């Protein structure tokens, strides 16, 4: 699904990724751990073609390496659901409109087709009652759940999450991680970048360390997780409320110490 072949990325003199060769299969779950500015975001941006490697080849599905045309880049991005630390919601659109936007962009323009899909995505993230609110009227956790609804509404095969709990207080962070796990168990591959080992512990899957631009497989060093190998689609209830998932850690507050930034 995703492969990096000897990928190096430099920003001027700074080396972000150094000869990274890596592969991720369909339905797989992987967490890239690294300190701030370690290159996690660069790695995700290479996948979405927001940036180009200095050398090496990045392949995502059938999109192999090189500089894609703008229309091909758009096509690639429509097949991926991306979740950002700062949510990237349109501030003048309601929750419903933000989620519907992803469908409109993918070429589904008929409101009668869009409405049930948006409703279902909002149900999945527990925001159906907030559908007419603007992002500014939501808590940070709710905003991130809205962003997740937007990312999953097209049922993409791959979800990229760039520090998705970075701006959230512990309870919201736990809900978001629980949600991501459930989406993954329904069949989507999940690649998550984070600075926090506890997030990696919750998510499970393959674990990679990104240090000095080098990507190292740290799966064996990580605590084993039942989710790590459970890449196959599950029959998890699509409309379950966040937090009621069986894999949700029971001691969420312990996983996210009070020093965690953000939260509303």
């Amino acid at each position, binding site marked *: 699904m995703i492969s990096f072949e000897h990928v190096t990325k430099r920003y001027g003199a700074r080396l972000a990724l150094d000869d990274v060769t890596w592969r991720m299969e369909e339905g797989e779950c992987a967490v890239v751990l690294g300190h701030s500015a370690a290159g996690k975001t660069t790695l995700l941006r290479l996948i979405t073609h927001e940036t180009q490697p200095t050398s090496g080849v990045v392949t995502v599905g059938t999109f192999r390496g090189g500089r894609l045309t703008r229309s091909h880049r758009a096509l690639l991005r429509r097949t991926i659901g*991306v979740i950002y630390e700062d949510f990237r919601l349109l501030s003048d659109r309601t929750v419903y409109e933000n989620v519907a936007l*992803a469908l409109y962009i993918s070429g589904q323009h008929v409101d009668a087709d869009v409405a049930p899909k948006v409703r279902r995505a909002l149900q999945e993230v527990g925001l159906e009652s907030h559908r007419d609110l603007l992002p500014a009227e939501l808590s940070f956790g709710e905003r991130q759940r809205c962003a997740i609804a937007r990312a999953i509404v097209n049922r993409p095969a791959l979800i990229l999450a760039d520090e998705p709990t970075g701006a959230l207080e512990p309870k919201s962070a736990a809900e978001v991680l629980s949600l991501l796990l459930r989406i993954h168990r329904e069949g989507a591959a999940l690649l998550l970048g984070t600075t926090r080992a506890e997030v990696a512990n919750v998510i499970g899957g393959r674990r990679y360390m990104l240090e000095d631009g080098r990507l190292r497989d740290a799966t064996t060093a990580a605590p084993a997780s039942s989710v790590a190998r459970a890449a196959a689609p599950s029959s998890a209830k699509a409309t379950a409320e966040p937090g009621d998932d069986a894999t949700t850690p029971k001691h969420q507050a312990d996983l996210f110490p009070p020093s965690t930034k953000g939260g509303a």
Partner: protein
Amino acid sequence: MHVYFWREAWRSFRAHRGLAVTSVVSLTAALTLCGIFVLLDHNARQALAAIGDRREMIVYLKDEVSDAQLATLMDKIRLYFGEPTYVDHKQAWSELSEQIGDPDLLSGVDDNPLPASLRVRLKPELLSFAAMEQAAKQVLEFPEVEDVRYGAEYVRRLDDFSSGMRATAWAAGAMVAVAIVMVLFNTLRLTVVARRQQIEIMLRLGATDRFIATPYVLEALMHTLLASVAALLLVFALQQGLAPRLVGLTYLPWTWSLTFVGVALAVAWVASAAALTRILRNIGS
């Protein structure tokens, strides 16, 4: 065109009301200027058509032309040049007397010196100076013809005036097209800059340039439609105001008005699409 794009265009229109008003006012000013030239061109064409209707060629005949020769000549002229009307000596004299008005002036003239002639209402394709000049040369070749007159200098000036008006209208149109392009380019650039962050998010979600641009193109068309209708109303008000002083000044026919709006929209479409292609290339990747 899906409802989504119209909804987005209307949202943007409302969200940037100040910019929209500025754009509509600027476009109205440019289009009104163009509308005035179109009005002048329309009225000049009408006047020229009326004058053109009176364009005729006088073919003076030799005295010895027989009735049979005259009939043959008229047939040939009818076939190639236009509709001839025969004016004999007496009728020519009578018309001259009427034109002069004072019979004493002609009392000293013993014999009628005026030749018989044919007044030819030329075919429409022969009404230009060049065509009339050529036709006159050909008619002069007939043995029955003494001379041909068609007011060469008058016709040439009329043609020059007509082509001058047309060139002025085209130049005004071209200037207004440039004005439309500049107004729309700057309006769209400001609108897009104001929404840059949102556009970047849409690009990250996989939106194509066309998807992003379409609502803005529609918004530009809304501005232009409003401006062109306002411009036509202003030109109408001007025509109504001037009509009592300038006899014969008429407003544009509805086909001209529709064409005016249509051309303005077409220019706006091309200009806004081209501008957005350029603007979006500089946003995100």
